[in-house]
């Protein structure tokens, strides 16, 4: 392995691979991506594969809105030899309580301000979009057609191949064991295959970003939270949009492959690194899914798995330089939606590090927001 690099990126998920590409395409030479296992083996490869713009905070919504535009032209932009399977079947966010409906109204106002074309629709209009939707108790729904699905493995693969063509080196099955600091500046990354001297490190390790920050003595306000998911056998296309019911803690979509991916959030999930699968989840998600979408009761479950959200206190990303470790940047805290905002997160961070004009104020994702004052909490996380 090489002894030095201009930039060392830790983490081979969507964020790490996209940042590698964005830097390389802007002319940065000598970039190395370090990945503990294989590319997209962490949260990216375990996510629900959804891409939505219907967020409650402006920050999340802008990143998601602009990322959708990138997904739309990604096969061509990255000259990908396969297909990222981007399908814009929309997101249908259904509401079964008044309180939730009020929140949806506020969220839609934020989205409209940013030009996101979300519609507020009646239960009958929602049923016209998803015929097997349970209308019992349904108050209304919000729908945005340009939301949808992308295949996380292929998106990462597309960034990886494009970055590799631009000269980026990828070291998979390599662990970071330490960060060397001199006078408060990063000078090297220690790995299981040797040290790499560098002055710029990007910590894009998702739920493990806190572990890396601890190596330079910084406590990142981040905690891991297990989320489980399952996939069914493939069937003929019958559900266009991703259906989200925050009341049922449920998300559920049919992928272009034909299988249904779904998951539920567990409010009692402890904060730890556990990624085992549980039977309790199978029961829970089956009950919620067959309540909201009764037709699905006949679908067979093929596989279940779990992954970790990298939860930040306000469910918004943290994009900042690490205090006390000049040259070390963190891109984490995506709180379960790092994949869908990945393309633009990478652009924003790259622009900041290279001293270019940022397309939005990156300070809004800074660590300073946790020092005091009121946080703008994201309400739309499943």
């Amino acid at each position, binding site marked *: 392995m090489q002894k030095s690099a201009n930039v060392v990126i830790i983490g081979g998920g969507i964020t790490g691979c996209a940042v590698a590409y964005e830097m390389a395409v802007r002319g940065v030479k000598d970039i190395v991506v370090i990945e503990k*296992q*294989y590319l997209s083996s962490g949260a990216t490869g375990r996510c629900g594969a959804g891409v939505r713009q219907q967020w409650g905070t402006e920050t999340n919504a802008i990143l998601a809105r602009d990322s959708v535009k990138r997904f739309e032209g990604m096969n061509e932009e990255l000259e990908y030899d396969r297909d990222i399977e981007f399908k814009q079947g929309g997101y249908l966010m259904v509401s079964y309580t008044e309180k939730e409906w009020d929140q949806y109204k506020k969220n839609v106002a934020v989205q409209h301000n940013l030009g996101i074309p979300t519609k507020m629709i009646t239960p009958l209009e929602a049923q016209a979009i998803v015929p097997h939707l349970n209308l019992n108790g349904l108050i209304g729904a919000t729908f945005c057609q340009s939301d949808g699905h992308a295949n996380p493995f292929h998106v990462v693969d597309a960034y990886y191949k494009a970055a590799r063509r631009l000269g980026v080196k990828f070291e998979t099955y390599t662990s970071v064991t330490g960060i060397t600091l001199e006078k408060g500046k990063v000078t090297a990354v220690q790995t299981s295959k040797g040290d790499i001297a560098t002055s710029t490190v990007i910590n894009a390790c998702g739920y493990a970003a806190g572990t890396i920050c601890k190596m330079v003595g910084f406590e990142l306000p981040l905690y891991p939270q297990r989320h489980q998911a399952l996939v069914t056998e493939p069937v003929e296309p019958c559900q266009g949009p991703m259906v989200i019911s925050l009341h049922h803690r449920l998300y559920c979509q049919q992928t272009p492959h034909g299988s249904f991916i779904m998951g539920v959030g567990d409010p009692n999930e402890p904060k730890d690194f556990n990624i085992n*699968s549980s039977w309790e989840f199978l029961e829970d998600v089956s009950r919620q*899914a067959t309540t909201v979408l009764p037709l699905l*009761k*006949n679908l067979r479950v*093929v596989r*279940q798995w779990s992954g970790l959200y990298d939860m930040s206190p306000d469910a918004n990303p943290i994009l900042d330089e690490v205090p006390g470790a000049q040259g070390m940047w963190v891109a984490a805290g995506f709180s379960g939606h790092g994949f869908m905002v990945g393309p633009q997160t990478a652009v924003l961070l790259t622009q900041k590090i290279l001293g270019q004009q940022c397309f939005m104020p990156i300070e809004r994702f800074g660590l300073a927001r946790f020092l005091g004052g009121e946080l703008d909490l994201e309400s739309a996380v499943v």
Partner: protein
Amino acid sequence: MLNKTGVPTLEDIQTVSPSEERLKKGPVAIIECFQEIPCNPCTEACKQGAIRPMEDINNLPKLDLDKCNGCGVCLSRCPGLAIFIVDASYSDTEAIVRIPYEYYPVPQVGEKVVGLNRAGDELGTFEVSKVQSGGQKNKTYTIWLIVPQSLAMEVRGLRLRSTEIQPKETIVCRCEDITLGEIQALIKEGYSTIDEIKRAARAGMGPCQGRTCRMLIAQELAKFYSIPVGEVLMPTFRPTVKPVKLGTYAGGE
């Protein structure tokens, strides 16, 4: 040993081996049945009274070597494909071994095939002298192989020579229709573990969860990297064991 490998031991074989003298006399059945299981079609099949009726259906069959004329009916009836007919009187240097065969394509008379021992190791190339169909109801074919006298008690299986694997036509992942050629191309591209191939091509993501393709892909990786199959990194084995309906988990059925 038999329980672990499926290969009988030398001692097992000796218990069912006829004497040299009996072998020289002409065709005789070799019943290589060493597991006490409830099974008795051979006793029903034998019209010579050479395989005696069993007192207990779990017993191993007992053959009367003097009564057996090597007709071969028992061979085609044995569900375990455990019976062979050896005729050491064929010539001074060669013997005939009759072997049950249940694969397609069926070898042709005059074809040269690879003879295998009980462990599946190749023993040489031998000529098929006769092919006998088991009939409408019994799909077991009997293949007559001409082998050297010294291998009469060794050759117990056969493999066709012409079955070269066609990577473009050979399906490795049956759930997702992925061919050997596609898998080999991915490995060449640099996808270096089963997990990576699974994510790139969906191999192993179908209802069987990789039960068919997992080890086949492992073999290809082992070949490519010249490592033992045991060193290929296994993917995570995930629930569920078999596909079950959401409605069942929800408790409605």
